[in-house]
């Protein structure tokens, strides 16, 4: 076999207070998919950013095609045919697809942009790999799946021979994931080497040729799908035995705590996003709301949370009418909300961990002394939450934005569940969250259910919905097109309903 396209040898990288990569080695051959697997904060993104020249390793070596490579900036990486689709998209929303692709490249027309030529080449790449996208449209108008295609096109346009995809599927619908895998297989068939990162074990088993597992910055195992199982991978990642499906104790259904009648809501573009929805959610019940993203789930959640006014209909929590409530009133009535876009709506990135943990209840007596903050009480409260939810953070005063994605989600969860709500709305509670954390978040949801909380869990992940929900509602084009008890639900049936064919 020829030399691997990439060899990373003994890479070590520290951040203040964190050993992000500890003596990590792995390699990738042309035409294979090598998966990096690991919990949130295991150091996957850091390792890839080192490869792409965004971070410099403290020690270690990178070899590309057998040659020692010194990569000090993304420009170096791109020159050496390394492409990267970042975990958080690196696109300029106000620029067009062609402009985003052309950024940083010399123009054939000197000072002037040559977007026509760029568009032409984009079209031919699109055709070759089935990556359909309109080069002339601005990024902000595109769906998440389309944006990702633009990221891949960016790399292909630069003739990447090694493509890194950092959690590309976290934001995709099941159908989009299938499409992506078809594209990736075409690329490996054309001898491109791919590094793939995902928390979803079935994807990893399906796509990978080889797998390297990281935990706390260290390699804990190299394996292949043929030699391993989902359970074994999960255990390797977490370092202990993991329950992939939560145990749900039987709970007696209580009274209706959340009641929606004829709720109709407009979306951001002014069109009807939620269309005449009726729902009853009982104490001690998890209602799973399934659906392909963009079918009104987000708007529905925001309306229940008091963030988006309803055009018509009523929202009632226990005996309180929340139809016209603002977020503060909803919370006072006993509503907790875990939003889908955690960095935008769930946490303040520049705030530190303890500030985000206290975002809602900082006015409570127990945190105050003589009208001022009682920092001892605050500290012990926050430390308790961080320990309970196993948030991986160097300290309580670390800026939240520097935590890994899954850990940010844990911070929000800790805050929202701490207030013992009556109704909990959780949108995509485990999106981008690793298995260990997902297990924990799931167990917390089940615990809340046992405590008599009425839970609305919105998720695109059918495995999650089927594993947790007591009843399942499917949303399509703003309406609830199907509502079934868990016992009577099958994956196929739900999938069809999600596609509007139920």
């Amino acid at each position: 076999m020829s030399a691997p396209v990439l060899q990373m040898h003994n890479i070590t990288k520290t951040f203040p207070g964190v050993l992000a990569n500890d003596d990590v080695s792995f390699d990738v051959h042309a035409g294979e998919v090598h998966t990096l697997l690991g919990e949130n904060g295991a150091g996957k993104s850091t390792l890839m950013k080192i490869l792409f020249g965004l971070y410099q390793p403290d020690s270690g070596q990178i070899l590309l095609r057998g040659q020692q490579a010194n990569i000090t900036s993304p420009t170096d990486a791109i020159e050496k045919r390394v492409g990267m689709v970042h975990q958080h998209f690196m696109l300029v929303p106000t620029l067009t697809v062609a402009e985003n692709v052309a950024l940083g490249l010399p123009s054939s027309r000197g000072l002037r942009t040559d977007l026509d030529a760029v568009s032409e080449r984009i079209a031919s790449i699109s055709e070759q790999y089935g990556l359909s996208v309109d080069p002339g449209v601005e990024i902000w108008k595109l769906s998440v799946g389309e944006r990702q295609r633009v990221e891949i096109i960016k790399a292909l346009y630069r003739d990447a021979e090694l493509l890194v995809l950092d959690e590309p599927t976290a934001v995709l619908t099941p159908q989009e994931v299938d499409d992506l895998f078809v594209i990736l297989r075409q690329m490996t068939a054309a001898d491109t080497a791919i590094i793939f990162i995902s928390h979803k074990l079935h994807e990893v088993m399906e796509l990978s040729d080889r797998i390297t597992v990281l935990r706390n910055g260290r390699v804990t195992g190299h394996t292949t799908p043929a030699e391993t199982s989902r359970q074994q991978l999960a255990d390797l990642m977490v370092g202990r035995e993991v329950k992939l499906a939560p145990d749900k104790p039987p709970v007696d259904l209580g009274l209706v705590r959340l009641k929606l009648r004829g709720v109709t809501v407009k979306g951001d573009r002014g069109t009807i996003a939620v269309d005449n929805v009726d729902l009853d959610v009982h104490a001690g019940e998890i209602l799973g709301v399934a659906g392909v993203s963009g079918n009104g789930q987000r708007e529905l959640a925001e309306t229940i949370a008091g963030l988006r006014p309803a055009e018509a209909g009523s929202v009632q929590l226990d005996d309180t009418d929340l139809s016209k409530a603002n977020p503060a009133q909803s919370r006072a009535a006993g509503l907790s909300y875990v939003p889908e876009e955690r960095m935008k709506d769930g946490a303040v990135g520049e705030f530190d961990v303890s500030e985000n943990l206290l975002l809602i209840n900082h006015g409570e007596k127990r945190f105050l002394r003589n009208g001022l903050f009682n920092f001892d009480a605050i500290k012990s409260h926050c430390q308790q939450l961080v320990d309970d939810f196993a948030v991986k953070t160097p300290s309580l005063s670390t800026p939240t934005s520097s935590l890994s994605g899954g850990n940010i989600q844990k911070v929000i969860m800790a805050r929202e569940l701490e207030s013992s709500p009556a109704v909990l709305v959780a949108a995509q509670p485990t999106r981008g969250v690793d298995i260990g954390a997902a297990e924990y978040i799931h167990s917390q949801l089940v615990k809340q259910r046992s405590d008599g909380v009425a839970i609305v869990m919105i998720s695109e992940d059918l495995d999650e919905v089927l594993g947790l929900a007591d009843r399942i509602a499917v949303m399509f084009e703003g309406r609830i097109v199907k509502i079934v008890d868990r016992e009577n639900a099958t994956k196929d049936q739900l999938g069809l309903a999600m596609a509007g064919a139920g």
Partner: protein
Amino acid sequence: MSQFFTLSVLTATLATAIKFAVPYLLASLGETIGQRSGVLNLGVDGIMLLGAFGAYYTVLETDSHLLGLAVGLIIGLLMGLLYAVVTVFLHAQQGISGIGIFLFGLGFSDLLFQELVGSVKPVKPLPTLDKLPGVGGIFEPLVDIDILGPLVFDHDLMTYTAFLLVPVVTWLLNKTTFGMNVRAVGENPQAADSLGVSVARTRFIAIMFGCVLAGLAGATLALQLAVFQHNLTNGIGFIAVALVYFGAWQPRWVMAGALLYGLVTATRLRWQSLDIIPQGASDIAAMTPAIITILALVLLASRARGPAALTKPFTRH
């Protein structure tokens, strides 16, 4: 009031409005480029003052408008260098650095004026087309055309330059690789950086454009008024920054804002001279342009969204 609504008075008011708009337009076009790259420069007024003094003093000494404008331009360049180093390479907070530049410009231009000139000494103003040495004769008949003459042909070369810069800056921002880089680093510098676009270099050049135009704006102001005095600009540079917001970061709307400001100012002066506004109310009247601009900002601001990375220093980690 009726004496205002005569054709000749209206025409003259409009012509004055166009002239008044020029320093605003130059400065705010420059600021537009800077802001599109993510850099707010509140020091425009200070740079204008230094450019104004430099140009004025050069003309006072050499009698050459061209040299005067060149000096204004070079002062803009030097101040741009200073501001760029502080904000782009040293990652200083933009708001406070800009105020520093303003205070420096305000104080230093006054000091130089006191030391080198002392009392108000007029210079010759920038010539209008028909007064241009050599070729002026060609334009003389054009100025006499009804309405069109005073509106279009009775201006100095800097006025034409300023208005010509509107399509030029639009083209620069939208049709060149530099402009594309500017828009990218102003919106998502991380993304631009990940593709090998140098955020620092792009912002540096954008700031230089902005400051050169600020220096020229000051020079033009001094040479149009043909004098220099303490705080000659009287806040024009700050209005220019506001006009960028007013114009939603689009050169043509920035131009509309500059013209509106010029028009309100010209109308106010005309009304004062016609005694439509009583003398006692002149202080209040002097505030109308600012008030109208603020109102326009409030009404329009909610619609437009500025560059997402505006005022945010960029570092890789």
